[in-house]
């Protein structure tokens, strides 16, 4: 959710900034976009589609996650010259690093889980197991987490109706995405049209 918000905010800010500067807002042009589709596919099957995710055992889901993020990392490397992409790549690298270090899933600290869900839901969660078949997270106490500062340890403010836990990597991904959309357009020389996309 934080990341989709970054896309919406970045697009609006980029469009607004271009309009204010009196140039045409051009979306960033990616190289090898097919890598994203290829990389996202395993996660689509393992986490997003209810019909397929319940068929996959945890081992296969974690392999799908790691392979998927490796392909996405290659994509960010190929496009590293785009503004913000290096920040996004760093965030993805942080997430991938902590996922690999902790057995193939993103660790969610018990402390963050306590702040995220109410006691009734918390009682249904088991330490060392995935939160659900739709989740990339595994519940772990901080002492058992490798690279704990990269885990899902931050929780959205309680006044927000939509609650989520996120990592430092997620913050970097959101920042990189926002920056990419804000300044990531090539401005054609001599362009004088206003900022309509």
């Amino acid at each position, binding site marked *: *959710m*934080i*990341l*989709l918000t*970054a*896309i919406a905010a970045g*697009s609006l800010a980029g469009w607004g900034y271009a309009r204010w500067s009196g140039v*045409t807002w*051009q*979306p*960033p*042009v*990616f190289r090898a*976009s097919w890598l*994203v*589709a290829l*990389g*996202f596919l395993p*996660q689509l099957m393992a986490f*997003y589609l209810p019909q397929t995710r319940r068929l996959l055992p945890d081992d296969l889901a974690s392999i799908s996650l790691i392979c*998927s*993020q490796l392909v*996405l990392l290659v*994509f*960010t490397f190929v496009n590293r010259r785009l503004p913000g992409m290096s920040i*996004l790549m760093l*965030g*993805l690298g942080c*997430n991938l690093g902590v*996922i690999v270090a902790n057995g193939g899933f*993103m660790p*969610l600290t018990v402390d963050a889980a306590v702040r*995220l*869900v*109410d006691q009734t*839901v918390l009682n249904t969660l088991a330490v060392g197991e995935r*939160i659900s078949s739709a*989740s*990339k*997270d595994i519940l772990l106490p901080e002492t058992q987490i490798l690279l704990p500062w990269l885990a*899902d340890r931050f929780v959205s403010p309680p006044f927000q*109706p*939509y*609650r*989520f*836990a*996120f*990592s430092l*990597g*997620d913050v970097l*991904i*959101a920042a990189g*995405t926002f920056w*990419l*959309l804000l300044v990531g357009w090539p401005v054609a020389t001599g362009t004088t049209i206003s900022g309509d*996309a």
Partner: protein
Amino acid sequence: MKNTINQFVLSLTKINKTHLQFVLMLLTLIMLVLGASAAEDVGGHG
């Protein structure tokens, strides 16, 4: 009815390369951030 169809066709002709580029870029970026992130959201459960 004919007028509505004409208006629809007219609006379709206004879709240019930049619009398509933007939609494709948006789709790519959404897949990228959904795949790259590992945020745990509980929606209204919390």
